[in-house]
């Protein structure tokens, strides 16, 4: 039984790291100005795009 507690605890630690990273992302403003964030990948748009924008 102990092994099951240990393994599930290891999973909890794994998820806790993700929870800490999530908290950091909120504090660091990663949930602000989302429109600009969503369009940020278009910076390198060029004439070689498979289907040009617009």
């Amino acid at each position, binding site marked *: *039984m102990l*092994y*099951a507690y*240990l*393994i*599930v605890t*290891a*999973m909890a630690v*794994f*998820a806790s790291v*993700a*929870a800490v*990273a*999530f908290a950091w*992302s909120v504090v660091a*403003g*990663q*949930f602000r*100005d*989302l*429109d*600009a*964030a*969503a*369009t*940020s*990948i*278009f*910076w*390198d*748009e*060029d004439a*070689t*795009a*498979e*289907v*040009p*924008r*617009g």
Partner: protein
Amino acid sequence: MAELEHAQLLAKLDGSCRRPVLLFLISAVVWLLVGSTLALIASIKLHAPEFLANDAWLTFGRMRTAHLNSVAYGWAAMAAVGVLLWLVPRLTRAPLRGTRLLEGAAWAWNGLVAAGVVAILTGYSTSVEWLEFPLPIAMGLTVCFAVVAGAGLDALHRRQVDHIYVSLWYLTAVMVWFPVLYLTANIGIHGGLLSGVAQAMTNWWFAHNVLGLFVTPIALATLYYVLPKVIGRPIHSYYLSLVGFWALALFYNWAGLHHLVGGPVPMWAVTVGIVASMMMLIPVTTVAFNQHMTMRGHFHLLRSSPSLRFVVFAGMSYAVVSAQGSFEALRGMSEVVHFTQYTVGHAHLGMYGFFSMMMFGGYYFILPRLTGREWPSATLIRVHFWCSAFGIAVYFLALTAGGVQQGLLLLDPGVPFLDVVQATLPWLQARSWAGLALTVAHIAFAISVAQMVLGLAPARGTPTLLAQRVTSQGGAA
């Protein structure tokens, strides 16, 4: 002026990653062909057991295992790393450093996977599913991935952007998650720290996470990058895309224990896995909703764009396979379909219908930008797409139906076991025909890729489209 600076930066970014990315992507295609051949042989053996049965290394147990490892660590992992190494500089706007080291990692990766497959075929498999490579080979692969992760995280550290785009979140997570998963499972299981049931729990924690915390994040990073770029429109709800990422990060790692339903494991531990599996409906719904709403009004582009066609097919498969997986985890469902062909169909819809199709979309998007050449033949792309789509559809439907039938017959104590075997044969034959279609698709794809990298494809001009582009208003563009 700004355009010139952008062009210079773009050239610098592509120049920093070109050689390692091409090495990983080309190697992946070679492993795809090797894996397809092994798969076809293993599949035929299931309904024609006398086929190539005279040599130990050609027996089903070794063929099937060699197939799994060559596609998982050869095709899937190398394609994923290639796409990752191309996306990271684009998203961070920071060139990769350590290019020579990355090239070395790619060569070493090939050598290690080759050694692992030979070890399996010659009888030196560890017999632990998804971790069949002997420990020294696994440790070598860990070092190679550490080099990749180091280069990616270094670029992330030097990023020239404030916001981390959702694709970059997924890629960053993979660079941290996968080495931890692979190292923990290999040392725990092969290092003698875990045995018996504890080994099984760790084994399925790892095996399930290979899908959810390695290949899935890279595939979703590709989706969230390629889809908006091809249709020229941002994701419908960027907020939702972040919710999906964090939900995956928080819930997925717990889900693997559902593989042990009915096993000698505390019920509460398995229940944890089942609950986490149902929670996965949250991130999956966000992806499916976002894909559909982003595509709304742009579905006509599926007629012309190769990368969009593969990526959208993959996104739809993700929704289906993930929802299926959540319900498959339930005890009642598991009672019927566990240990049947149903599970094989589910696994292939995930690794092929979702992941591989997404990677194909990534190749069609990335290679012209990296090689300065256009795809040589729209016909070859059509053959690739339709044989892949047809093959995986037949594969999935046959094994899903056959698996349910097999499970119900196995539960009936009045049915002799031989009758159950006989009943599955037509489904297994359909699987081989589907596998043949997939192999044809891969040969067409490999011919296209070879022409691209050998400089036999036309130089960059107008993109190779599958049909004349039509605007949303109905006119030709």
